């Protein structure tokens, strides 16, 4: 299945990932935009402020003094019945972590994009996925894009997911810093009417909001069983978001003519002997590598994780079932597991399968280090070799040594 | 988190001025505490001060309730009428009631007031001797008063003179004779000179005063009775009312271990010798303004002591400023007011002023005012009392105080109050 393919058309513009995100936000008609600049997300904000200055974006804009406040102002607006957007990267995401947990625990359906970036220290502003991995247990829904078009589309889907009465959760739309945030490529911009129709299913009035007519208390102190009940319901909502992501994909295709595969994009997996698992922009290069190797008779496929949280455990297990080996591409490290983060999840998923298979983890692309096609072809070959029983280390650092 | 104090149960014996002031104070300090107010009498709380006014017809019984009914309905206050206390068991922290029931307390206030003293006289026939300290006394007296009745009043103290005045005011040809062993009326309230004037006033209204004599015997004589006086004369009468004095109503406390002198002994916080037992009002013998103890059965003292007792019972340690003798009399429209000392001491100075029937006298200890008495002059006893209590140096303004007592006293008091505040 070729998903997300774009046919050149009149509504196609060349733009980078940040601009694609900005266009999506514009189309979703937020009430409030709160922002604090941080590379590489800054051009997104600048584009939104440009829209605002030009009168195209009718939203409150709050130039906050820090990321904690950016998310908090957005949470405030949503609590009062609005739709809000914010964006961040890297240390900015860390600096809003208390508000991040507050937003999900309060079940505030806010949408925040993350142009992913490495963490300090050492200092760097380069690409990497460490930031979103550090917050993956924060109770948010996390979508990860591979292309600029997918960034735009994912933001539209994010509001549908977030504001769905059965979900009511904040959603991250994540895309690789620089590799997507600054990648200019053709992006189809939907019409406002189409987006309005798509979002009509959610919005104000379908969830509890602050009001003086029917006063509610937000952020109450809770002990014991009631707290457990809130957590239980939060967990249930996460699972409903997973289901909704699958059905929304069809709805999205009906509305915009593009499908992305729901929680996982399965690429050339039908007859694959080995499966690669990855997330984000490097999957584009990985697809090229797979195509290339298939010409040599290597039967490899790719499971691209589009929804990283909640983790699509059941679908992934189905895709892993019966493969000779599974290779996992990570652009982050999980301290203490001596591997990447995605690898830990895949390993956990493997436990759902009756039959074991070799698993191998490839870590690369940290701090903007380029993941070249040749590296990925080597990774696929290594996975194939493990499937044949060849020994080797569990974790392979691409480009190191 | 601080622990919240448990709500306590306060029992107050006596529903007069002292008891009610205590209720107000407890309510204000500890609104959650429970109060039980026990009154031996069947009537809603009243003050015996109203008795002569009821008799004179200046007021009727529907207008004498000290507090409206709603007062008792508020908060956790329970008023029990006809509930006489017969004993106190301080060890078990309970009082015993007339019906034998026991009532526990956390704190107890004795505010049972005073009762009439019985005169020492021979009464072989068992002739009825009325008193004049309770509503019941008043009702008994009224029942026996027919037109032209002869009433003998034993004692020319405050109660006796007020009774006499009320009887005269009532009219209907009632003859009143007052028998007093001292040589003047109101011996504990006025000096001889002023008392003489008051006596003349009563006599001019037809009251027979038998001064310097006391009744020694009482017997039936025809349809009436006859009193034998100490000088041998006989005084015929239809009704005899004993007003020879009052004493603390403390008989029921016998055997309780409570220290009783002339009244129940209390300190400035109205604390007795027994734990959590307080006393206030007519039943209490507490410090005066200068610290000497005494029973001072007048209303402002009862109110002040009751309030202090109530606050202490509620856990607020406050002290009573001590009672100051003060009285206001109004006999046949003649007004007399005394505050502080009435008897001059050798080391004191007396300054007086007389203008027609109006008289004023001030007693000074050095610069300080210690006593004031005025007749037929508008005065402010409260302001004078402040000056005396605070020891305000008022001597240099004695002329002003005598010439214009209300303005002078209020001015001096106000200046001093602004300094204190």
């Amino acid at each position, binding site marked *: 299945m070729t998903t997300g*393919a*774009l046919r*050149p058309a009149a509504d*196609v*513009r*060349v733009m*980078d990932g940040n601009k694609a995100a900005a266009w999506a936000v514009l189309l979703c008609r937020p009430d409030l935009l709160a922002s604090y600049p941080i590379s*590489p997300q800054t051009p997104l904000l600048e584009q939104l402020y440009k829209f605002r200055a030009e009168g195209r974006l009718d939203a409150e804009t709050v130039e906050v003094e820090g990321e904690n406040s950016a998310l908090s102002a957005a949470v405030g607006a949503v609590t009062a019945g609005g739709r809000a957007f914010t964006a961040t990267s890297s240390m900015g995401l860390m600096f809003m972590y208390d508000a991040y947990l507050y937003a999900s625990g309060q079940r505030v359906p806010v949408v925040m994009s993350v142009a992913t970036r490495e963490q300090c220290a050492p200092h760097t*502003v380069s690409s990497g996925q460490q930031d979103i991995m550090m917050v993956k247990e924060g109770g948010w829904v996390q979508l990860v894009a*591979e292309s600029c078009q997918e960034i735009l589309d994912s933001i539209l889907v994010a509001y549908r997911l977030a504001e769905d009465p059965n979900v009511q959760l904040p959603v991250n739309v994540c895309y*690789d810093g*620089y*590799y*997507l945030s*600054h*990648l*200019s*490529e*053709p992006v189809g911009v939907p019409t406002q009417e189409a987006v309005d129709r798509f979002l009509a299913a959610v919005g104000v009035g379908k969830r509890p909001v602050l009001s003086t007519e029917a006063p509610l208390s937000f952020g109450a102190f809770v002990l014991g069983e009631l707290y457990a009940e809130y957590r239980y319901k939060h967990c249930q909502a996460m699972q409903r978001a997973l289901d909704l992501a699958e059905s929304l994909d069809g709805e999205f295709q009906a509305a915009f003519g593009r499908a992305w595969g729901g929680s996982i994009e399965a690429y050339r997996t039908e007859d694959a002997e080995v499966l690669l698992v990855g997330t984000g*922009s*490097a999957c*584009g*290069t990985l*697809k*090229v590598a797979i195509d290339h190797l298939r010409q040599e008779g290597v039967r490899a496929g790719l499971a691209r994780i589009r929804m990283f949280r909640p983790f699509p455990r059941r679908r992934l297990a189905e895709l892993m079932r019966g493969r000779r080996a599974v290779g996992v591409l990570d652009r982050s490290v999980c301290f203490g597991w001596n591997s990447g983060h995605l690898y830990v999840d895949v390993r956990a998923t493997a436990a759902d399968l009756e039959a074991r298979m070799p698993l191998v983890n490839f870590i690369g692309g940290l701090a903007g280090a*380029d*993941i*070249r*096609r040749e590296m990925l072809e080597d990774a696929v070959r290594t996975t194939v070799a493990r499937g044949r029983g060849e020994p080797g280390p569990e974790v392979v650092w691409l480009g190191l040594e | 988190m601080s622990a919240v104090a448990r709500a306590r149960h306060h029992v107050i014996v006596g529903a007069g001025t002292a008891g009610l002031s205590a209720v107000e104070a407890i309510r204000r300090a500890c609104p959650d505490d429970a109060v039980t107010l026990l009154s031996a009498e069947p009537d809603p709380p009243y003050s015996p001060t109203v008795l002569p006014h009821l008799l004179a017809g200046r007021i009727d019984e529907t207008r004498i309730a000290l507090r409206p009914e709603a007062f008792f309905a508020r908060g956790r206050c329970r008023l029990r009428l006809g509930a006489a206390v017969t004993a106190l068991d301080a060890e078990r922290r309970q009082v015993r009631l007339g019906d034998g029931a026991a009532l526990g307390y956390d704190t107890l206030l004795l505010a049972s007031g005073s009762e009439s003293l019985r005169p020492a006289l021979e009464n072989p026939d068992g002739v009825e001797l009325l008193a004049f300290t309770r509503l019941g006394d008043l009702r008994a007296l009224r029942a026996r008063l027919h037109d032209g009745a002869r009433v003998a009043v034993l004692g020319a103290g405050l109660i006796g003179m007020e009774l006499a005045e009320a009887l005269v005011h009532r009219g209907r040809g009632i003859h009143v004779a007052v028998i007093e062993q001292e040589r003047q009326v109101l011996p504990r309230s006025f000096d001889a000179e002023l008392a003489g004037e008051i006596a003349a006033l009563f006599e001019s209204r037809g009251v027979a005063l038998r001064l310097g004599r006391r009744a020694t015997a009482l017997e039936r004589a025809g349809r009436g009775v006859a009193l034998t006086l100490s000088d041998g004369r006989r005084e015929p009468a239809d009704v005899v009312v004993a007003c020879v004095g009052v004493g603390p109503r403390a008989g029921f406390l016998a055997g309780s271990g409570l220290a009783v002198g002339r009244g129940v002994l209390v300190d400035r916080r109205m604390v007795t010798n027994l734990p959590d037992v307080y006393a206030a009002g007519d039943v209490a013998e507490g410090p005066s303004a200068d610290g000497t103890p005494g029973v001072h059965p007048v209303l402002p003292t009862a109110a002040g002591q009751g309030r202090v007792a109530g606050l202490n019972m509620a856990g607020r340690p406050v002290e009573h400023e001590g009672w100051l003798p003060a009285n206001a009399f109004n006999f046949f429209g003649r007004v007399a007011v005394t505050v502080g000392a009435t008897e001059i001491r050798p080391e004191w100075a007396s300054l007086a002023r007389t203008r027609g029937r109006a008289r004023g006298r001030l007693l000074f200890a050095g610069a300080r005012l210690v006593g004031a008495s005025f007749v037929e002059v508008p005065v402010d006893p409260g302001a004078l009392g402040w000056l005396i209590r605070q020891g305000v140096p008022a001597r240099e303004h004695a002329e002003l105080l005598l010439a214009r007592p209300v303005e002078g006293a209020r001015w001096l008091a106000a200046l001093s109050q602004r300094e204190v505040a």
Partner: protein
Amino acid sequence: MKEIRFHGRGGQGVAMAAEILAAALVRAGGFAAAFPMFGFERRGAPVAAFLRLDTAPIRERTQVYAPDCLILLDPGLVRTGVIFDGFKAGGALVVNGATLPPLPPGVRVGLAGIVRATAIALEELGRPAANTAILGAFAGLTRWVSRGALLDVLPDYFEGDALDGNRRALERGYREARLVTVPEAAHAVP
């Protein structure tokens, strides 16, 4: 698929040059993807940008290691010794300047052109943003993109006087670019 690598310095509009070119290629009905390689943002720092063009969607998200074309906004960067890394034999070279820079041994250039893009920019824009002039030269020299497509997308990036100036700069770059002969160069146009 063809791959292009831009080299220049901060302030010359290197990243924008790649983006404008991608937009023009898409406007003309093709596919393109471009992105810059960033360090910390600083005027004068060496900057590279990458562009791929194809007739099908582009999925590679990597830098360009084997460019079919090098566009040198600052030929002085050749001294760093890495500019020609991976340069395909017979590839195209577009240089901002009056002459070609010295080429490392072994480099086989198929097409070489020069244009005084900075001078044009200074004359037309008043500042050394050489990107549109060199894009005009690139169009004129390689014919991989039409001058019209480039002019069509300029309004998406400039407005007012800047738009007019950049149009003039692009036109002049297109007109004033000169093919030059390189010793040992293969003259076949790719």
